[in-house]
């Protein structure tokens, strides 16, 4: 069951400071409303994973590992591989996170990233089939939040795409019932590059890439995931209030622009 979460007590004065700054066209970390925090992407840190990426978005830090293994396809998609996305909001990342089964925040995060990758058909699922209906390759995307300073969705989306774009795997073949791997790594085939862009409504102003302090005072949040041709492939609204129709139009257009900027950075880092 989902219930209204208890936000950590933020002093009224601090709340007011954050809201007043945004209302005056400034932000608590000296950014403009439409700019991201500094973005750093490192790929290939985890040698045992097929692909990995660590992303720092300001002080938020996310590690994504991609593992590719063989398994069975879903009965309704016998000629496609399997993609699963999971997110861990471990207690080391924030005093707000606790151990135990995945929280609704973790489930939402994983499902929003999953939707972006799945709906844009980023991973070439047909290429993952070894034997139709019986054996396919399964792509696991595991999101590990290391440090939570706001906007985990975008940090995780960037890290997931960088990890997938830099993932390498051995060519697998079925000999009878056994899977044999041929030597020589090849890249995981990707058809699309979805990038999530998240906005927060603080007071009456829309800001991109909200920092934790802004998330704690925001009225609502909207994530728009944009695929490589500039179309929308996923959206998710969060937060206790909402957006007007005009605000939504503005957000969607800004998302297309911001996604293109971030996509270029991600693909450059994944190649490097």
């Amino acid at each position, binding site marked *: 069951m989902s219930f209204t979460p208890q936000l950590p007590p933020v002093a009224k004065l601090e709340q007011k400071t954050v809201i007043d700054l945004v209302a005056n066209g400034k932000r608590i970390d000296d950014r403009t409303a439409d700019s991201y925090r500094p973005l750093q992407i490192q790929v290939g840190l985890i040698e045992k994973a097929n692909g990995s990426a660590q992303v720092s978005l300001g002080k938020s830090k996310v590690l994504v590992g991609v593992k590719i293994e063989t398994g069975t396809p879903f009965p309704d998609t016998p000629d496609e591989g399997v993609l699963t996305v999971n997110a861990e909001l471990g207690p080391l990342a924030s005093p707000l996170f606790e151990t135990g089964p995945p929280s609704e925040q973790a*489930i939402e995060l994983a499902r929003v990233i999953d939707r972006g990758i799945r709906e844009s058909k980023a991973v070439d699922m047909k290429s993952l089939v070894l034997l139709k209906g019986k054996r396919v390759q399964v792509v696991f995307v595991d999101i590990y939040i290391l440090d939570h300073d706001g906007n985990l969705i975008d940090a995780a989306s960037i890290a997931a795409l960088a990890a997938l774009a830099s993932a390498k795997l051995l060519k697998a073949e079925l000999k009878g019932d056994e899977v044999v791997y041929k030597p020589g790594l090849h890249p995981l085939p990707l058809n699309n590059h979805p990038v999530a862009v998240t906005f927060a409504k603080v007071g009456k102003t829309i800001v991109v890439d909200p920092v934790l302090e802004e998330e704690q005072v925001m009225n609502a949040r909207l994530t728009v995931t944009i695929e490589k041709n*500039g179309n929308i*492939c996923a*959206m998710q609204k969060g937060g206790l*209030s909402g957006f*007007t129709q005009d605000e939504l139009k503005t957000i969607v257009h800004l998302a297309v622009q911001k996604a293109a900027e971030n996509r270029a950075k991600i693909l450059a880092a994944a190649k490097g």
Partner: protein
Amino acid sequence: MPEPKQPEKLIDDKGVRIDGRRLDQLRPIKLEVGILDKADGSAYIEQGKNKILVGVYGPREAHPKHIALPDRAVLRCRYRMAPFSVDERKNPAPSRREMELSKVIRESLESVVLTDLYPRTTIDVFIEVLQSDGGSRCAGITAASLALADAGIPMRELVAACAVGKIQGHMALDLSDAEDKYGEADLPVAWVPNANLVTLLQMDGILTTNEFETGLTMALDACKTIHGMQQEALKSKYLVIKEVAEEREETEVVA
């Protein structure tokens, strides 16, 4: 039940959909208020083949106590699908989809409930999907806001919800199960009319920014229609009560 076969076309040459609707037409909607005895408030919605029952309890003592908030009521929401509500039996254990929907549905209702009037309590919304036919989260929100009103919980206004989607390259209102499954995109929207706020917005599939804007306008127009139906459903409950009261008055005079 075996799943129905994929229809050859979702829209025929005359622009008519598989269930005979035009692109901008809602499915038939039936709303009823106050149909459960024990719940503080309840509502039932049929939208196409969707059959959804919502019960509201509260404001009541928070349980467990630690979830209570000192300055407002906690809104709790559970969206659940019955195992028999879909073609292939659904495992009754809560799925990740149900957990996500419970969250976004709660967030779509939070801004209209005057939670600050009841600190340290909970207001519980239980949405049971008895039969699912596409757009069940939206139908659930439409019924949930009626059930909250029926429970007498002070609210700013009712929330109405409706989905739009893309089928065969056209934006279409209120997708059915088959249209959702074989269509290209789904865009569920919840709207608070007087505050002019979209409080639920999700999307999956591929939409151009223009298609999104067209779809959003279609969804908001439909929400206006549904909002009118909600008001009628609430009023009709009290018309029945009025009739009963008048009848009693008459018999008392005779006696």
